[in-house]
């Protein structure tokens, strides 16, 4: 039951956003500040997910050099700055993480 509610709600939250402008088909124009504001949405949301995920991977602050989530996360960011290619970042970042966890047993 909870899953039905969750999926129905997520569908509405997704489809309404995607559909609203197609429905009115060009009769509304966005003020420039709103367009600019929207451009900050993806990086702001994603960062709010990433930072706690790598700094508190097990629910408590783990700000040390033996935290593989943190080390591999920093490494992945460096790779992303270097190549700016999503697939390369994912592959090298995961490789680094696996190496730290299972190669070095962190």
């Amino acid at each position, binding site marked *: 039951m909870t899953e039905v509610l969750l999926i129905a709600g997520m569908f509405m939250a997704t489809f309404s956003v995607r559909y609203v402008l197609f*429905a009115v088909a060009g009769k509304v124009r966005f003020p420039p500040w709103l367009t600019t504001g929207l451009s900050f949405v993806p990086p702001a949301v994603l960062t709010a997910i990433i930072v706690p995920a790598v700094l508190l991977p097990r629910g408590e602050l783990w700000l040390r050099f033996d935290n593989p*989530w943190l080390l591999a996360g920093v490494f992945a960011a460096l790779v992303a700055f270097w190549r700016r290619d999503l697939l390369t970042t*994912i592959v090298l970042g995961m490789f680094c993480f696996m190496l730290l966890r299972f190669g070095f047993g962190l």
Partner: protein
Amino acid sequence: MTSYTEIKQDLRAIQRREMLGGAKATIPLIIGAIPFGIIFGTLAGPSGLSAWGALAMSVIVFAGSAQFIALGLMAAGAAVPVIIATTFVVNLRHILYAANLVPKVAHLPHRWRVMMAFGLTDETFAAVSNRFMLQQNTEHAHWFYLGSWLAMYGNWILCTGLGIALGELFPDMTDWGLDFAMSVTFIGMVVPYLKTKPMWGAVIVSGAIAMATFGMPHKLGLIVAALCGIATGLSFHLLLKRSSAQETHHD
């Protein structure tokens, strides 16, 4: 003399060509989405979403990042309304895509625009914006869109199913730290944005507030942090614009 059936056949051929073109243009982006879909399916069970729930989510919701984030929130014990609100915030970027496409498709029948709205993903937008913005003859380009969407949608459902099967075959896969796959994917998505000072401001504030509000119930901190980040970025942008306008004025 061309008969009515010949014209109709020509039209069919054009439509088929557009659809294939759309699917082809989406292939590189589909390759990037494959690991994403598989990992989503694999992580569903351990996060507390049933196999059918995961499949239904991919079929009905069809929003990669939002589905991933929903899993993370479920695993952390967030309430359903918070997950739905987060989905809304995460998907706000699609308004920008729609705003770009609408002038080119406003003349199409309503059912076409419903299809386009449902199929509006980052990948399909990237694949079709080229066709709609840079090329002429967009008369049949909605078939191109349809081809791109069907390729993306089919692949997403297939990969979700594959991931669910993998997760059931290897139940201890979750101990491997696949949750990091989500973080690393998001890191790869954020970095290309970091080109301006306002964007850095948005990201730094969002990350800091996310840490400060980590203990908030129902994972509400995520929405608070994102909104603070967006507000910071926008204010920073407007301030910079005003000061540069003043400089030009003094010159």
